[in-house]
Structure formats: C-alpha cells, structure tokens
C-alpha cells in the first residue's frame, strides 16, 4: 500500500529538482519554471496531509486544500509579474542570462 511517506518522498524529490534548477540554471525563464516546480512540490505535500487527516465526518481536511488553492493563485500572479520583469529586463539589456545581470553585485 502507498503510505504518506511515499507521497512526501516524491514531493521531496520534486522540490530538490526545482531547487537544483534554481541553483544550476542561468536562464531566468528556466529559473522561474524551477520555482513553479518547488511550489508544486509543497502543494503535493499539503494535499497528501489533507487526505491523511480524515476528520470525524469521514472527509479529508479541506483546510489544506484551501491553502493549496491560495498557493496556486499566488504562484500564477508571481509568474505573471516575474515574466513581466523579464520582458522589461530583456528590453533594457537584450539578455535573460543571470550572468549578464550583475550591476548590483558587490
């Protein structure tokens, strides 16, 4: 049978993949996609916990699902703003590579 730990393990691997993407990739678009992977890994754990905590009425704990709903909304807004910043940056510098954007580097 599938345990809660299996879902948490899959979620952890997905989070680590996204984290590796943020650490390794130099393309801002791929970094934003990796951020989405990390957010979705958190969502998967939350839904697994929601299903794990079955209440007295025999239903899953829907509080976690409402939380996931909020996370999806905020993630969509975040992607929209991030990509708009990316477009503005590309217009100013003609690049999406983080190596080329080092004006604030000490």
């Amino acid at each position, binding site marked *: *049978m*599938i*345990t*809660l*730990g*299996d879902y*948490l393990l*899959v979620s*952890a*691997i*997905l*989070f*680590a*993949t*996204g*984290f*590796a*993407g943020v*650490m*390794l990739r*130099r*393309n801002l*678009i*791929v970094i*934003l*996609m*990796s951020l*989405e992977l990390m957010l*979705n890994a958190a*969502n*998967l754990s939350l*839904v*697994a916990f929601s*299903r*794990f905590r*079955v209440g007295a009425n*025999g*239903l*899953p704990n*829907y*509080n976690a*699902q*409402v939380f*996931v*709903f*909020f996370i*999806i*909304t*905020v993630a*969509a807004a975040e*992607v*929209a*703003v991030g*990509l*708009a*910043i*990316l*477009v503005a940056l590309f*217009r100013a510098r003609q690049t*999406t590579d983080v190596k080329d954007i080092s004006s604030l580097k000490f």
Partner: protein
Amino acid sequence: MSPVLFWIFASLMLVFGAAVVVNRNPVASALSLVVSFIGLAALFMSLDAYFLGIIQVLVYAGAVMVLFLFIIMLLNLQAEARRPINWLAAVGGSAVAVILLIQIVRIIGNVQAAQQTFPLVASSTTDDVRNVGALLFRDYNLPFQIIGVLVLVATIGVVLLSKREPRG
C-alpha cells in the same frame, strides 16, 4: 489508487521535472513542465482532491504554460542556447540540492505518521468543490478577498512593467 498507478504518475512527474532542469532549450523545458504538472494533477486526484487536480490542469497546464511559451516566443531565445557549462558551479549546486534532499528524506524517515497508510474516507468525496467552496467563502473569506486584491495589483503591475518607456 493502486500503487502501480501511483508510481507511474510519480515517476512521470519526476522524470519530466528533471527534464525541465536538464533541457538546454527553454521551449523543451516548458513542454516538460506541462507533462510534469499533468502527472501532479493525477496525483492530486489519487488523493481525492479532484477540484485541485482540475485547477492544476487549468491554471498551470493552461494559463501559466501559455504565458511561458508566449514569453519564450516573444524574446526569441534560441540564439543564446549555447554556452559553456561551468562544471565547478554545476557540481556545487547539485551537491547543495542533494544535501537538501538527504535532509528532507531523513526527516521523513523519522516521522512516525509517514509509515502509515491513508485512512479510508467514509463518505463520497466527489463533491469536494462544494466542500472547498464552502470553506473558502465561510472560514477563509477575508484571505480570499485579499487574494483578489493581490491578483488585481499583479495585473496592474504587469501592465505597468510591460509598458514601453516613453522616449525623452
């Protein structure tokens, strides 16, 4: 859900999630991300969260991916795909990610609840739109409205950011 289906969808999600990071072409990354999100939506449905599974497909595979592909098309990023890989940074970054994964896995191993299977749900969970919606509009009404303001602010911000600077 049967364990076979769980592992099929989980491995689908993880393989294409890794493909997002590994692919050097941003378009291939974006399309891998779609497959990864569809696998994740299947996992949501395996956890009786049908509403969230559908929202996942609609919002991520639909809206967010179209946005990503649109930006990639707009910026025409194919030209700068070839860059030498900094192997020292690559090994260091992967090492940090692997250490993080090991730590999370060890913590999961120490939690007693992680070894338990999921309890049965007594009644039908197919009407979870009603349950989530009732909770959203009753208990979480204020956060819901704050999220609405956030989306409005994000929309205005996006319009402002992508507006062309006036000359002079």
